[in-house]
């Protein structure tokens, strides 16, 4: 358990360090910049954060690694990251995980097959929209981890691809 947590905010990686100051006071350091905040828990799991000039309610809801954060009337979605490690399925990864929960409708390649960069590997459908998973680079399919008709969650590995053609 480390007091330092790492978060993904869109393309960014951001860090938070919390230090309780006693009572309901916390020193909170975000990306190296610190503030003191009062933190009050309201009955329904809402937090009231108090700064120098007022307070704002914050509602945080976890869904897997995702955190839905509402500050007053502003909404943000963050992702909890293990310190330093990036998830392979994010924009920085190879795109071979399911980008959304859905149903695999078509498997377009077979294990062992050589594929070109951009070649469709697999189709996943959710809410009447089809999304193609394409090869991020030239390579050879090592493994197909899903079958047509299968329902998958978001972020699940679907295809493993070796870099060598």
């Amino acid at each position, binding site marked *: *358990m*480390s*007091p330092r*947590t790492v*978060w993904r*905010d*869109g393309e*960014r990686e*951001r860090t*938070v360090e*919390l*230090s*309780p*100051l006693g009572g309901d006071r*916390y*020193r*909170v*350091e*975000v*990306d*190296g*910049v610190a*503030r003191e905040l009062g*933190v009050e828990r309201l009955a329904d799991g*809402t*937090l009231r*954060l*108090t*700064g*120098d*000039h*007022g*307070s704002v309610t*914050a*509602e*945080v*809801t*976890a*869904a897997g690694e995702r*955190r*839905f*954060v*509402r*500050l007053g*009337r*502003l*909404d*943000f*979605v963050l992702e*909890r990251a293990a310190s330093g490690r990036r998830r392979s399925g994010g924009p920085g990864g190879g795109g071979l995980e399911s980008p*959304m*929960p*859905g*149903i695999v409708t078509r498997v377009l390649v077979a294990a062992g097959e050589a594929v070109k960069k951009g070649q469709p590997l697999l189709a996943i459908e*959710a*809410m*009447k*929209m089809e*999304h193609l998973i394409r090869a991020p680079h030239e390579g050879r399919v090592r493994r197909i981890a899903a079958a047509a008709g299968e*329902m998958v969650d978001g972020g699940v590995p679907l295809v493993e691809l070796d870099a060598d053609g």
Partner: protein
Amino acid sequence: MIRTVFKTVLIANRGEIACRIAATLHELRIRSVAVHSEADRGALHTRVADQAIAIGAAEPSASYLNVAALIAAARASGAEAIHPGYGFLAENAEFADAVEGAGLVFIGPTSEQIRLMGDKRAARALAGRAKVPVVPGGEGDDPEALVRAARTIGYPVMVKAAFGGGGKGMRAASDDAALREAIESAQHIAQSAFGDAKVFLERRLERARHVEVQVLGDGQGDAIHLFERECSLQRRHQKVIEESPSPALDEPLRARLTAAAVALARKARYRGAGTVEFLLEPDGHFYFLEMNTRLQVEHPVTELVTGLDLVRLQLQVASEGKLPFKQAQVERRGHAIEARVYAEDAARDFLPQAGHASRVRWPRSPFVRVDAGIESGDTVPVHYDPILAKVIVHAGDRGEALARLAGALDEACVHGVVTNLPFLRALARSPEVAQGAFDTEWIEREFLRSFAALSGAPAPELALAAAALAESLGVGGARNGVSRTRRAPDGAGPFAKGRWRLPGLE
């Protein structure tokens, strides 16, 4: 109080529209019967109905498109009529036939009318007979005949599926070669999506708006209109924000447009509620696009400006076979706008989202209406249309309505499933929307860029702080990942008070 012949009505739909139909049924003291797939066991629409019947597996083909199961559920529940909602079987003539064949009332037009309007070429022909202008176009099964037609009407042209809808299989082409390719592609998609490869051509209209007219027919040749809806704010032919009245119409144009819609409905001897869609060019010319033979998603804006309940009117026409009032009695007041809340991640190419919506709060303010299909704790399944709710506002004028919409969208909160709420909020506050200066392609041509800049901005430090504090305190369902006993470093570390953005705190 109307007296319908119906004591029990089955709602052959799910989500927000099933809930909305149930509300009117309950008010009229008609028993409502919900149907649900395996994925929708316990869904909100099953909870608000008087009775809920399971009709099949999660896939729509096994449940909400399962005609036999729906008819069986209607029989088992003693329903005398079926309301199809929108989507699914709402514009399926075979379903309407099956319902009537089972001795039940289909709350909608006749199956012949559904069939007629489903064939876009036949609908164009009918519009022509009703003296309603249609987009110059061409038909024919031979691609080369279509190419010759394109040269006559002038490029660019659109290739559309004869039995299509919702922009599916639609292709634009600017020259002969592109057109031949577009025809082949469109035929292929039309065959697989609609079971019929027939396509037709229309001249592509530049910077056109989508304006539609709500009509109501008695099925015997009389019809009235309930004014227009402006639906030009679309992304990939999917409407996002709709309003009434249209900021693009003045009174003479409104009179001509609504008269054209009524003429078409009368010519079709249309029964029930329908929508006549038009494309409107910047110079004020309008052209018949198609007629939707169902209740539209965006019907609430018409309800708010006219003060009429369209589902109630549908039930009245289906029950009594006549219109409950005359055209002169339909008045409009103020301005109404609707925004559709979809489960899609606008910041990530509008990828559809699903999951457990653990915290849901819809706005509740004066003159704000929300038609919602989920509440806190409900699941958004992957199998269906991503619409979660519609936020609809009514105000004295368009400026007030937009301010009210923006305020209401701020109040809405969905946690657990990513929605397009940030996109809708940005749209509601955009200067072009305020000026009414948009066409059906404006969002994709211009707005998406400015939205990307907005949604790519970093979250304020306070949001990160809240996420970390919630985890540390164990609220919101996150694990406690932070030690709570560690002492603060004495003056150590960078402490630059004032460098945070603190919405609400400074």
